[in-house]
């Protein structure tokens, strides 16, 4: 036997090089975005920014902050999560454990697919037409949360479904064979086994809607001052804030937009970290 032929070595090197190149091409924009955000966002990354709103801030003033936007985003996304996660999870459980092949299951599955493809502005328009104008409830953080929950739900359903599919049938059978009712099997065996993946999916869904701007424009409207009540009157949110500040012609506003963008990314990163920690903490049974 001779060694590896020259042609094979060459091919190996070539493909290895291509794979490395693809990696660099994929990572370069990500790194440059992060770099830009940190570089430009640090200028206003101070206490004033995170404790003040834009109330009484003139166009050329160097102060002013995004406290009202931060508060709004947390409230809106929080309410959206409270609406979308239980419904999405239960839908996924129904599709995988009960209805998968029944007519109702297929219909639900179809509509989840349709919902996945709904452009975010359409979700905003729907809430605008139905809730804000139709029922005359006016702009509010809650209206925005409803639009966001419409966008979140299919993501939660699909990701939870994938994770539940990964739970081996042997575990379900093992539990059922012990005389455990099906509902208990799902709660105590299936869901804990899929826990890590489901949490990751939920965090991705939250991260996806946290950056939504268009539907909030139509439902939350935007505001310069602090409105802690998500159920009454317009609010601000981070993406709206970025959108408004970045559109201004003066440097202080653009600086504020960068810092807000950095804050948004940081929140999403912290959420991801929390998900990882939760997953690590629950992963397999550890020594206690």
């Amino acid at each position, binding site marked *: 036997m001779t060694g590896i032929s020259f042609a094979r070595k060459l091919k190996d090197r070539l493909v290895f090089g291509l794979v490395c190149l693809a990696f660099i091409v994929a990572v370069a924009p990500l790194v440059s975005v992060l770099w830009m955000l940190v570089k430009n966002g640090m200028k206003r990354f101070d206490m004033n920014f995170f404790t003040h709103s834009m109330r009484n801030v003139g166009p050329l003033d160097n102060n002013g902050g995004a406290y009202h936007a931060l508060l709004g985003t947390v409230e809106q996304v929080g309410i959206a999560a409270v609406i979308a996660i239980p419904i999405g999870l239960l839908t996924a459980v129904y599709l995988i454990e009960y209805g998968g*092949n029944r007519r109702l299951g297929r219909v639900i599955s179809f509509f989840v697919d349709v919902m996945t493809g709904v452009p975010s502005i359409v979700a905003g328009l729907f809430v605008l037409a139905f809730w804000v104008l139709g029922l005359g409830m006016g702009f509010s953080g809650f209206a925005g949360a409803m639009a966001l929950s419409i966008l979140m739900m299919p993501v939660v359903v699909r990701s939870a479904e994938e994770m539940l599919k990964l739970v*081996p049938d*042997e*575990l379900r*059978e*093992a*539990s*059922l*064979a*012990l*005389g*455990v*009712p099906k509902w*208990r*099997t799902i709660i*105590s*065996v299936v869901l*804990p*086994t899929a*826990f890590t993946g489901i949490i990751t999916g939920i965090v991705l869904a939250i991260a996806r809607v946290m950056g939504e701007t268009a539907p909030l424009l139509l439902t939350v409207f935007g505001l310069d001052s602090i409105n802690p009540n998500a159920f009454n009157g317009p609010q601000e949110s981070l993406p709206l804030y970025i959108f408004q500040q970045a559109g201004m012609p003066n440097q202080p506003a653009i600086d504020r937009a960068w810092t807000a963008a950095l804050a948004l990314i940081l929140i999403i990163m912290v959420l991801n970290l929390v998900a990882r920690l939760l997953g690590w903490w*629950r992963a*397999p*049974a*550890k*020594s*206690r």
Partner: protein
Amino acid sequence: MAKRIEVSGLAAYYGKTRAIEDISMTIEPRQVTAFIGPSGCGKSTLLRTLNRMHELTPGARVEGKVLLDDDDLYGTDVDPVVVRRNIGMVFQRPNPFPTMSIFDNVAAGLKLNGVRRKAQLAEIVEKSLRGANLWNEVKDRLSRPGAGLSGGQQQRLCIARAIAVEPQVLLMDEPCSALDPISTLAIEDLIASLKGRYTIVIVTHNMQQAARVSDTTGFFNLAAQGQPGRLVEMDDTNKIFTNPAEKSTEDYITGRFG
């Protein structure tokens, strides 16, 4: 504790396909009954009809009667969950719950059915692990994950889990087919020691194993390819392996099959 199973005129279907037909047999308590036969002849299907696991497969259904002592398992008002509580099952591949510790795995059947008292749980867990000949190997690491044990230990853990709920019957679907010879020996010893308290039914592809562990053996075969599986004969294990009544049984156990 241990109860007699009587099967009469049983047929099981997957959708429109009839997997087994015309099965009638009596499974005696405090004995080991082995099912042998070629792949696809319906041994496992029959086993799964005995604790109503068969119907969990979409489209699967059962005709005929299965009596546990005098209770019809397929009676209209019988809850399959209660049936499975009384008839435990051990599967081909060891399947401990990956999110649970060794202790919680054994206690799972009790906990999930509402037993909460710590002292009682600890007592039953120890008893079950001793019953499964696993106590000495795991007593110092009960809080470690069950999935961290070796394959043979995992299978004994699954047996401990099954006997912790004190079933009357223990069904074993090729419990040693994924194990090495030493673990297999451990499981076979275990089966022999459990025999006094339970009715045990074991499906196996290993004829030596059937000969070693069982008191009664049933031989299953297909009349022809694509036909449903049938019980060819069932008798004392000794008789089946030395002097079977049917020609096809003799062909199978002497390896002149097919």
